[in-house]
C-alpha cells in the first residue's frame, strides 16, 4: 500500500483532482459532485468539446482541458467509466448553445454512460459523438463484438476537435466530422515490459519473465495479444509496432504522418526519445514523411513500463489544426 502516493483508496481520484487545481488552477476548474473539470476561463461562443473516461491515464483527459482543446473532462474512478450523471452535468455546464461534441474511447462502460447522457439531453441540447477505436491489437472480424479499444489516438482527436471548435463559426457537425476523420486515419499499437501495479492491492496485473515483452497491450493492465521475446534492440521494438500501423493505414510513399510516441507510465524520457529516433529512421526507410510528433507520457496506464506508437495520416487540414495554439496543463 505504501507504494502509491495516496490516502484512502476511495479518495484517490477526488484528491488528485483537487491537486490538479493546486498545480493548474490558472487553467482549469474542478466542479464537485458531480465531478468534472472545466476551463478556468470558459469559451463564450464555441462548440463544446467534452471527453472523459476512467482515471489512471493522466494526463488524459483532465490535463487536456484548456484553450484550443477540451472544454470539459469527466473522470471516472481508476479504470472505471464516469457516470452518465457526471457526463450530463459537464455537457450542461459547457454548452454555449452551439452544441457539444463528445469524444468517447471505445469501452462498453464509457460508450454506455456517455451515450445515455447525450440521449437524455436530446430534447434540449445538440450532442454529437466521436468514437475513438484506434487500437490495432483488438481488430477482429467478429460481427457485433465490442470493436477496437480506444487508446492514444484520443489525444490527437481531442487536439484536432478542440482546434476546430476554436475556429470562428465552426459548427458542431464540422467538429464531429473532423474528429471522425482523425479516428479513421489513425491506428495505435502498444507493448509492455512490466504491467501496472494495482493501487489497491499493490499487485501487478500480470507477470513477465526476464526478456519477455507483452505485445499489443491496452491501457487497463490487461494482457496483450502475445507474449514475445524480442531482441531487446529499440529498433526492433519500434518496427514491430510501427510496421503493422503503416500497413493498416495503407500509407503510401511520401504520405505525411503524425506520430505519437506515448509512454505508458514508467517509461523514461530517454527511452521515448530513443523510440522517436528509431521511429523516424523506420518511417524514412518506408519513404514516409514524419511531419509532426508528440513524444511523452500522454495516455498512461498507471505505472506500466512500456510505450505505444500512434500514427495519423495527415492532410493540410489536419496539420493546420494540429499546429493551432493550445494551452492546457499537459499540452501547450
Amino acid at each position, binding site marked *: 500500500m505504501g507504494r502509491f502516493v495516496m490516502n484512502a483508496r476511495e479518495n484517490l481520484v477526488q484528491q488528485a483532482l483537487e491537486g490538479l487545481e493546486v498545480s493548474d488552477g490558472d487553467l482549469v476548474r474542478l466542479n464537485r459532485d458531480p465531478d468534472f473539470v472545466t476551463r478556468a476561463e470558459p469559451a463564450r461562443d464555441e462548440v463544446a468539446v467534452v471527453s472523459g473516461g476512467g482515471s489512471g491515464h493522466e494526463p488524459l483527459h483532465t490535463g487536456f482541458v484548456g484553450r484550443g482543446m477540451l472544454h470539459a473532462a469527466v473522470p471516472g474512478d481508476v479504470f472505471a467509466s464516469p457516470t452518465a450523471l457526471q457526463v450530463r452535468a459537464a455537457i450542461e455546464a459547457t454548452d454555449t448553445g452551439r452544441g457539444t461534441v463528445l469524444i468517447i474511447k471505445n469501452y462498453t462502460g464509457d460508450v454506455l454512460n456517455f451515450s445515455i*447522457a447525450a440521449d437524455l439531453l436530446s430534447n434540449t441540447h445538440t450532442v454529437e459523438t466521436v468514437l475513438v477505436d484506434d487500437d490495432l491489437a483488438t481488430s477482429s472480424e467478429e460481427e457485433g463484438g465490442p470493436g477496437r479499444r480506444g487508446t492514444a489516438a484520443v489525444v490527437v482527436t481531442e487536439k484536432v476537435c478542440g482546434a476546430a471548435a476554436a475556429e470562428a463559426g465552426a459548427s458542431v457537425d464540422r467538429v464531429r466530422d473532423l474528429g471522425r476523420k482523425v479516428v479513421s486515419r489513425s491506428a495505435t499499437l502498444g507493448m509492455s515490459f512490466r504491467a501496472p501495479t494495482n493501487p489497491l492491492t499493490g499487485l501487478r496485473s500480470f507477470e513477465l519473465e526476464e526478456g519477455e515483452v507483452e505485445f499489443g497491450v491496452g491501457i487497463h493492465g490487461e494482457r496483450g495479444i502475445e507474449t514475445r521475446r524480442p531482441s531487446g534492440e529499440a529498433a526492433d521494438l519500434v518496427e514491430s509496432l510501427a510496421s503493422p500501423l503503416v500497413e493498416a493505414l495503407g500509407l503510401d510513399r511520401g504520405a505525411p504522418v503524425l506520430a505519437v510516441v506515448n509512454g505508458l507510465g514508467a517509461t523514461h524520457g530517454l527511452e521515448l526519445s530513443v523510440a522517436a529516433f528509431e521511429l523516424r529512421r523506420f518511417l524514412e526507410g518506408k519513404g514516409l514523411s514524419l511531419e509532426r510528433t508528440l513524444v511523452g507520457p500522454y495516455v498512461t496506464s498507471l505505472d506500466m513500463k512500456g510505450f505505444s506508437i500512434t500514427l495519423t495520416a495527415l492532410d493540410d487540414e489536419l496539420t493546420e489544426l494540429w499546429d493551432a495554439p493550445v494551452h492546457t496543463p499537459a499540452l501547450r
Partner: protein
Amino acid sequence: MTDTGDTARLSGPDARAWFLAFADRISRGADDLTDLDRRAGDGDFGWNIDTSLGRARSALQDIDAVHPAEVFGTVSDTFLASGGTSGPLFGLWFGRVAHGPEEPWTVADLAMAFDTATAAVQRLGGAQVGQKTMVDAMAPAVQALAGTARPGWREALGEAAEAASAGADSTGGMVARKGRASYLGERAADVVDPGALSIAWFFASAADV
C-alpha cells in the same frame, strides 16, 4: 393502500408512493437479485439497485413532487450516478419516462412515456427481446400499456405488471446475448435475469400505492 384522489391520472405524490413501494420491494429482495447475478454475472446487481433506490428514497423526500416527471427525473439521477450496466440503463429508462408532461399523467401519457423510454434502452443497450435482459420485461409492459382498455392508471399498471412478470419468467429459459451473462452461454440458461425481474417488481409495486 393509500387513496390519492384521481383514479384516471397518476399524480406526483402517486408516483412518489409507487417508487417508495418499489424501493421496499427491492430492499426485501436484494439478496435474491444478487444471487441471480452471482449465478449469471458478477454478483453485484442487488447491491447496485438497492443502493441507487436508497439514494432515491432520500432524494424523493427533498422534492415537491408536483408531477410524475419530477419524480421520475429525481429517481433517474440516482441511477445515472451509479456504475455497472444496470444503473445507467435504469437511469436512462426513468430519465426518458421523465420526459412525459409536467402535469398528472393519463394512461395514454404513461403508455407513451414507457414506450419512448424502452425504445431508448433498446437503442443504447442494443438488446432485443429474447436476449435475456431487462428489455424482456420492459417490452411486454409497454405493449400492455399501449393496448389496455382500462382508463385508470392502477388497473393499467396492473396489466403492465402481469405482462412484465411473464416476460421476466421467460428469461428463465433463455441464453443471454447481452451483458455479463452472455459470457456463460448455456451454463446460465435456467437463471432468471435479475434486471428483468426488477422491472416486473417495479410495475407490481404500483398496486401498493
